[in-house]
């Protein structure tokens, strides 16, 4: 869980940096060329297979752990109060399975809307300096003209924020990296990451809907 989680965490940063090019006012030229590079470069392609595998492995591991943990309790309590240690909220940690399921469903929609359309080769082409590339930018901007998808996207980002809030520092704890000296730093970075990255993603469809 921790290793795949950290890999997915690092992927999100790259994904966000790439996506922020959607905000550049150039009718999507930079973004489309970037998308072309990301889908044709052999190194990136190899990493992308690792990414698909990691997403599936992370989900399957999560499901297996959830099953094992439910079995470990056996008969449940009639009354149960779960408190966390000082400075920890147990609510998100306890709900990680459900939060993760919502994230997974969002991912399916997200992949269908963009990744699958790219793979199916059903989107239009656009030419830059004699080079013909897929016009992913137009697909994105058309998608986020629909307020329903904007709302789904922004809400999903909020859910992902909670997933990351627990996941980030939890990954370090699992790998044995909990220590008086650097845990406060990890927690601060984790909290900032969990807020800023989903916020960065959420800004894109909002910008496209309201300002373009």
């Amino acid at each position: 869980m921790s290793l795949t989680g950290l890999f997915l965490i690092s992927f999100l940063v790259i994904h966000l940096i790439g996506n922020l090019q959607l905000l550049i006012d150039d009718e999507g030229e930079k973004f489309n060329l970037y998308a072309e590079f990301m889908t044709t470069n052999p190194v990136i392609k190899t990493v992308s297979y690792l990414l698909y595998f990691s997403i599936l492995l992370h989900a399957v591991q999560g499901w297996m752990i959830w099953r094992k943990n439910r079995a470990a309790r056996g008969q449940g309590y009639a009354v149960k109060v779960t408190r966390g240690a000082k400075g920890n909220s147990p609510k998100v940690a306890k709900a990680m399975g459900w939060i993760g399921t919502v994230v997974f469903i969002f991912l399916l929609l997200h992949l269908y809307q963009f990744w699958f359309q790219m793979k199916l080769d059903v989107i239009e082409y656009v030419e830059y300096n004699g080079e013909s590339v897929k016009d992913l930018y137009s697909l994105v901007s058309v998608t986020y003209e629909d307020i329903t998808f904007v709302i789904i996207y922004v809400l999903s980002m909020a859910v992902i924020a909670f997933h990351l809030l627990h996941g980030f520092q939890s990954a370090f704890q699992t790998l044995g990296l909990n220590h008086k000296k650097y845990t406060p730093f990890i927690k601060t970075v984790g909290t900032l990451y969990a807020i800023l990255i989903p916020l960065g993603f959420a800004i894109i469809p909002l910008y496209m809907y309201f300002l373009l």
Partner: protein
Amino acid sequence: MKLTLKIWRQGGKYKGEFVSYVLDKVSEHMSFLEMLDVLNEELVEKKETPVSFEHDCREGICGSCDMVINGQPHGPMRGTTTCQLHMRHYNDGDTIVIEPFRAKAFPVIRDLVVDRSSFDRIIQAGGFISVDTGQAQDANNTPIEKTTASEAFDAATCIGCGACVAACPNASAMLFTSAKVAHLSMMPQGKVEAKRRVQAMVKQMDEEGFGMCSNVTACEAECPKEISVENIAKMNREYISAVFGSETSV
């Protein structure tokens, strides 16, 4: 004060159900166990089977008095066992639900008493030092830094009550096992077998059917000795280095 107790009864004529008892004239000076003693005296006088619950030292060091009180192992106070909980924390007319610790690896024997021999088997798997450490040493003969000694002692204060398992939504025994692993591996005598110990104890823990840690930290919150989840990270660190960084395998 007058209290309504809803207590899990299992064994004998009880198939496993909550039974309500009304207890009058409970003094605020009583400990929680003394309150149960009073209930049991009343039950015995009425020729009913008393409620079975475990207790021994009644001073918070033996880890026997396991029960979940209104959803919290050892009750609402942090850093105390049930025997150290006093009735002054309750009000007249309160209803208190008392359940046994719930985990597949802690089967209920009777009423509030559970079988915690799974913890014993984890200790038997490696929670000891078998190398010859010689005769009793002179004090300070083995130099140990104060902070290390304190950290080891903090982990060693674990009384093995099992509240961590009862509190954990996953019924995981990571806090207990890690406290033992961390305590021994910080001492020079314990370091010798550290690589084998951590692997053997984790293996036994998994075989007993405890859940897996998802870093909820409920264990630390409910631990009567306030053992820190830092020990879990320490154990994970030890485990990773023992599995991948040593030739020792279990």
